[in-house]
């Protein structure tokens, strides 16, 4: 590390201090931080619901909250976590902050649209939280018809409006990234010199632009059926309830990749840096990202193997779902191979990244169980599914998100956090996570259905383990919040590049200047030009 470290006086914090300057900013870095603040609030609202769910499930009888309240809690948890945390998490915070810097640009292509995206997101979020105070929604985040359209007595339409609104923020951000990556790369920044984080967010943006409108239309149809009795999904009105599932999963399966692709991007950056190695098979990794994004659109029917859809359709969706595992597996193998011959250190971001690989792998292979037709019949709609997607979304996406926040924290704030505390939290989260969700695989295999307020006594021991794990997980999530805040004022100054990382963002001072670069950078080398110690080029 460099000996003389000073804070960059001309940085994007110092340029103006008023609240107004933040609320009217067009700086992608400030907007990234606005998003970070908002999604953190929503994350903790969603977590609060999860905490209440886990408390209820400690005993097999439904004795903490009434059934309707429980149903509203898991619905709120799902809606908030999917649309107000996971979908925007990495793209809208780290993506906003980093993509322009990584490609050598001063800002995104449409800064005003970027700010509008945050306002729309926050508006949609507040609206959805408002519905909670008006009585909540009890359909689950999946809004299955005809329950949602004709039978539920909760605030379905209001919640749908909230989700509908937030969809536009996804689309705006995605449009912005697509145009930015196409048009604003610095001279020499060819496509295959882009960091994988940029590739991942680019692919994610394409999914967002293509899939989000389908969700908006589908939910609008639910609202129309509910409000005006226009028969689309309810068979008593001449509709088809399975049509809803097809449309919903046409968005919501790709949405899983919206949540996990950016995480893969983060992990690629971190592993290359702390192994001091170029990412193994860079081009393969980039194509794997695009492959996942593409094939991900053709696997939605694997959510419907027991719904009564045609067996032959089931077979096609099953094979496609197995095929989408190929690029995911390639990524895991290539991260592992990146370590080979490296010069590895284990700072907190690296611990998160390695944890990501483990949990993502477990989530991935259990996905194959659910893609295997005859096994899915037994496992679907049980806690096996709950465990599976939490391994991908919480074990995968949130690990990577927190890891990424740690990795780029010195760049974002100019300060270093407490390394021992950060490592401790990473390990705590890993342990707490596994204790929470691994028992759910076993409960699901034994037939415990999901979304049960009370459940047969035989599953109680597993649920106690799960709830115990959740309390550890809670500590693991609160700790970083505390020490990261603390570091804002008291952390050591980081300097421009505390990790000795490659990438244009690290060539700027920390925190970066409002315009990022003093002069337009010119790129002359591949991404990840790391050199392990004592390496013999061969």
């Amino acid at each position, binding site marked *: 590390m460099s000996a003389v470290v000073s804070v960059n006086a001309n940085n994007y914090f110092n340029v103006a201090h008023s609240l107004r300057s933040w609320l009217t900013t067009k700086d992608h870095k400030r907007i990234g931080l606005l998003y970070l603040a908002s999604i953190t609030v929503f994350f903790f609202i969603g977590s609060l619901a999860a905490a209440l769910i886990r408390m209820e499930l400690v005993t097999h009888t439904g004795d903490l909250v009434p059934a309707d309240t429980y149903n509203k809690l898991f619905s709120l948890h799902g809606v908030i976590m999917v649309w107000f945390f996971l979908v925007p998490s990495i793209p809208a915070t780290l993506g906003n902050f980093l993509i322009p810097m990584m490609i050598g640009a001063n800002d995104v292509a449409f800064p005003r649209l970027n700010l509008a995206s945050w306002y729309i997101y926050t508006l949609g979020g507040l609206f959805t939280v408002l519905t909670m105070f008006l009585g909540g929604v009890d359909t689950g985040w999946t809004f299955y018809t005809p329950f949602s359209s004709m039978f539920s007595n909760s605030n379905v339409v209001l919640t749908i409006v909230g989700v509908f609104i937030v969809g536009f923020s996804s689309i705006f951000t995605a449009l912005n990234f697509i145009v930015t990556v196409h048009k604003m790369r610095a001279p020499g920044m060819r496509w295959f010199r882009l960091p994988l984080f940029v590739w991942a967010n680019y692919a994610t943006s394409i999914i967002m632009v293509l899939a989000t409108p389908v969700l908006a239309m589908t939910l609008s149809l639910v609202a129309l059926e509910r409000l005006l009795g226009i028969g689309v999904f309810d068979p008593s009105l001449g509709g088809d309830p399975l049509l809803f599932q097809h449309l919903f999963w046409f968005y919501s399966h790709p949405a899983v990749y919206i949540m996990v692709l950016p995480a893969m991007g983060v992990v690629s950056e971190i592993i290359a840096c702390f192994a001091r190695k170029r990412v193994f098979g860079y081009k393969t990794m980039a194509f794997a990202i695009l492959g996942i994004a593409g094939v991900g659109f053709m696997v939605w029917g694997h959510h419907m193997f027991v719904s009564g859809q045609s067996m032959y359709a089931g077979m096609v969706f099953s*094979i496609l779902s197995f095929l989408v595992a190929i690029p995911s597996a*390639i990524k895991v193998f290539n991260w592992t191979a990146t*370590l080979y*011959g490296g010069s590895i250190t284990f700072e907190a971001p690296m611990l998160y990244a390695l944890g990501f690989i483990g949990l993502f792998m477990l989530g991935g292979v259990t996905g194959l169980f659910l893609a295997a037709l005859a096994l899915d019949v037994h496992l679907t709609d049980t806690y096996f599914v709950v465990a599976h997607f939490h391994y991908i979304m919480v074990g995968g996406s949130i690990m990577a998100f927190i890891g990424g926040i740690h990795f780029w924290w010195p760049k974002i704030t100019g300060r270093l956090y407490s390394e021992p505390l950060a490592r401790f939290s990473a390990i705590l989260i890993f342990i707490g996570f596994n204790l929470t969700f691994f028992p759910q695989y076993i409960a699901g295999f*034994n037939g415990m259905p999901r979304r049960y307020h009370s459940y047969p006594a035989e599953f109680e021991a597993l649920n106690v383990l799960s709830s115990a794990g959740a309390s550890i997980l809670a500590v693991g999530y609160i700790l970083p919040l505390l020490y990261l805040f603390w570091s804002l004022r008291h952390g050591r100054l980081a300097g421009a590049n505390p990790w000795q990382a490659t990438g244009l963002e690290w060539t700027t001072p920390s925190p970066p200047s409002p315009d990022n670069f003093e002069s337009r950078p010119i790129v002359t080398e591949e991404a990840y030009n790391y050199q392990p110690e004592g390496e*013999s080029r061969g």
Partner: protein
Amino acid sequence: MSLKLIPEQASSVAPSIDVLFYTLLALSVLVIVGVTVAIVWFSVRYRRGAAVERKDVVRRPRWELTWTLIPLALFLGVCVWAGKLYFDLYTPPRDALPVYVVGKQWMWKVQHPGGQREINQLHVPRGTPVKLIMTSEDVIHSFFVPPFRIKQDVVPGRYTTAWFTATRDGEFELFCAEFCGTDHSKMIGRVVVMEPQAYQRWLQDNLSGKGLAAQGSELFRSLGCSGCHSANSSVHAPLLEGVFGGQVHLQNGETVVANERYIRDSILQPASQIVAGYQPIMPSFKGQVDEEQLLKLVAYIQSIGVREGNQP
């Protein structure tokens, strides 16, 4: 508190499903352990400061192909295997005993061909294939018996079917697996598997009135169906004797199998499937018959449908 790790097996398909499960589990463990060992080994061997030769390996297409194609072949084998089992799981044997299930918030209503009715219970004989013909009166439910390894969504507006052969006497929990509202977690019933003789006794003891087909026959007359669908009717309507299970040629050139779903659709949406050579003159009975009556009509049509050469 007891810790249950492995589900019991109580149907003919459960053992083969479990073999598939454990095979896939073994493959998965192999991959996970392999990658984990590699990560740990590399992490230790190539930690910073370790004196070890480091080669710059950034691309080896052959390695990538190897570790992609071999697992792919193995896992695709599992995929096909699971597909085969799935087809078995949803293709009931011809001689399966039909049982009619109607789900509603939040209970299971069961009717047996002999007219026996039960709620949140399903009595079946051990060793006999049982075919469930299911529908819902309101929202989507899902019929799930973990020890049988079967699950099937129960969807309003259509029939879905599932089948099983129970292999062990006893009582097994029947869950609703698709979220269906307030008391979703209370929509739990029992499947009671009985020795065949005990089952016969149970059928006798619970006899109340006529069989389903006979009740359907009464409905067939009281609703006026027989006014048109009979040999001496002046209205030109297809005769229904011998129809069930056979092929029906439609006006639009399609051919459909006359199964439960076809009968149901023909009663509720007669205009949607006009039999070749007939006029679309039948009115819809939508709103005039409830799900349980529909099932009785289906049972009646089925009872007069058995004919040489027809396949159920």
